[in-house]
């Protein structure tokens, strides 16, 4: 159906088929639409065969990292009597990304069914679904769906008669971007501050409560039932030329476009068409200036780099950025790149958990130097200083939050240097009051 816009003819509608259809929210409505058939089928399949199917399908993590889902499931140790967990990452908080919210709002049972199948595949008896605290509406909808699913025997002591207990716990976050980082999320579930953990150990070896754990994103899990019923070959066929990126991807488009929203396309879909045809492009009279294609943590692309770019994991890497979570922030020629990059840096400075020095100090100083530039007090060597700071923030910390702050700064200075220099040369009116 599409939400908030009707589906575009060029979309490949799989996950978003019932967006905007409140009838799909209830258990009965979901079953009417074919729901829980995939879970039944999965229960009749050996876990190893299920993992093999997901591997074969080419499904990769939709949360940002793009790690092959079947491989991740296969990393879980053999059942040895210890408790095992599935954690669903529904902490969607990457600026520009708002797809998981729609999955939970319209098709909560699609997510629950994906969770149930994954739990069966990895032999987990407890599923935590970690929903960010600000998502009050998805929380209410998911709570109702969990209750209904229990009432219909999807979860509990013997899910759909399978005889092996699976429980679901919805866990509410409380305002911390960093808890979307998988090991910070595990700490948050354990009742701790959301500090990321040093890896290894990886979660499959020592996850939540030190026990074997698999963490998957909402969109990844919602795709699983379709692969179970339609097969790995079907999923692999959803690809426009690059066999490493398969399936559909929900792309959230926001910023300077006429029809912001979620669009579901086959991997490899032309980015130009996504922005201009599906999302309607910038407002009349405006031209495209820049796109941050994968949530705010990836390098900024120029309009030239967008032209001819395939929207998939490898296609965007070829153009120097990343698909990430698939949240595209579009900026037209009215955007002040220095101001926007400062605004992003402020986000990371606010959200740093502060355990690593490079991140705690680096994000704060990046903001201060950018503030100085925007206030017309920039110094000639400030751009070199920012680049040096960014260098010290890349690849040196426990998690990638500080790298994420550096990405827009470095790419912004490289691609829009003139705008920074104009502020420093006082050729441009200060955008901020003096600090």
């Amino acid at each position, binding site marked *: 159906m599409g939400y908030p816009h009707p589906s575009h003819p060029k979309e490949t509608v799989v996950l978003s088929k019932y967006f905007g259809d409140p009838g799909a929210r209830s258990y009965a409505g979901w079953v009417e639409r074919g729901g829980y058939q995939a879970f039944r089928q999965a229960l009749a399949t050996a876990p190893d065969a299920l993992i093999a199917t997901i591997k074969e399908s080419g499904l990769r993590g939709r949360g940002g990292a793009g790690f092959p889902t079947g491989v991740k499931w296969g990393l879980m140790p053999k059942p040895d009597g210890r408790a095992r967990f599935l954690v669903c990452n529904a902490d969607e908080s990457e600026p520009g990304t708002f797809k998981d*919210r729609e999955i939970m709002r319209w098709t909560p049972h699609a997510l629950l069914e994906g969770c149930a199948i994954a739990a069966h595949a990895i032999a987990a008896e407890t599923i935590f679904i970690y929903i960010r605290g*600000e998502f009050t509406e998805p929380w209410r909808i998911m709570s109702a769906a969990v209750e209904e699913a229990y009432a219909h025997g999807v979860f509990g002591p013997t899910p759909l008669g399978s005889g092996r207990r699976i429980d679901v716990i919805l866990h*509410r976050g409380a305002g911390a971007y960093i808890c979307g980082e998988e090991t910070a999320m595990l700490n948050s579930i354990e009742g701790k501050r959301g500090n990321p953990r040093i890896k290894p150990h990886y979660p499959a070896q020592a996850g939540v409560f030190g026990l074997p754990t698999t963490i998957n994103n909402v969109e990844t899990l919602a795709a699983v039932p379709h692969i179970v019923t339609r097969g790995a070959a079907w999923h692999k066929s959803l690809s426009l030329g690059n066999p490493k990126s398969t399936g559909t991807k929900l792309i959230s488009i926001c*910023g300077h476009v006429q029809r912001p929203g979620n669009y579901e396309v086959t991997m490899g879909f032309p980015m130009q068409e996504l922005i201009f045809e599906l999302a309607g492009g910038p407002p009349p009279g405006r031209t495209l200036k820049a796109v941050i294609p994968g949530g705010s943590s990836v390098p900024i692309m120029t309009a030239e780099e967008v032209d001819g770019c395939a929207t998939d994991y490898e296609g965007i890497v070829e153009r120097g950025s990343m698909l990430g979570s698939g949240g595209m922030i579009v900026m037209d020629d009215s955007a002040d790149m220095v*101001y*926007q990059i400062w605004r992003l840096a402020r*986000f990371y400075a606010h959200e740093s958990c502060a355990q690593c020095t490079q991140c705690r100090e680096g994000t704060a100083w990046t903001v201060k130097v950018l503030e100085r530039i925007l206030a017309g007090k920039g110094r000639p060597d400030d751009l070199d200083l920012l680049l040096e700071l960014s260098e010290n923030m890349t690849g040196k910390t426990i998690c990638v939050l500080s790298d994420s702050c550096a990405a827009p700064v470095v790419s912004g200075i490289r691609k829009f240097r003139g705008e920074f220099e104009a502020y420093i040369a006082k050729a441009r009116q200060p955008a901020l009051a003096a600090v």
Partner: protein
Amino acid sequence: MSHGLQQLHRRGGAAGDHSDVPHEPVLVGPVRDQLDRLIARYPTKQSCLLPALWLVQESRGWISEGSIGEVAAALDLTPAYVKGVVTFYTMYHTHPVGRHFIQVCTTSPCALCGAEDTLRALLKETGCRELGATSPDGRFTVIEVECLGACGFPTPVLVDDDFIENVTPEGVPAMLARYK
């Protein structure tokens, strides 16, 4: 900041020190029952900490030192540990807030689409004047928050538990009229 406003919320600021307010036990009756149900469900007592803090905030509106002590005792933790967790997460209030708590997203995608104007309109209409301050009539507290995860619907605003999309400066008075 571009809007010339200072964020008071995180520091407590205007809210002041509330250590002199006598503590009325919160984990009693139905709230305690709810906590006990959570404890039965979670693998460890400590892992009930975030939900326990939510329970306190839902019943009291904020989390006081006294409540921190109660939660710590209920979950076999120390008050200092619980305070460390409370202050890590931005949604827990460590001081009283207005009857209606308004969170406005001004992160980049929303900033591109005029979120800072919406924020200014909210501060003016509520009479809060400063970020994090409560309006003189005690009705509203307005804060600026980072990404609410609804970037396609600028400006998203969270009023208490109501998630409101596409708020414009012009739409602010009508939106506020619903909250007494």
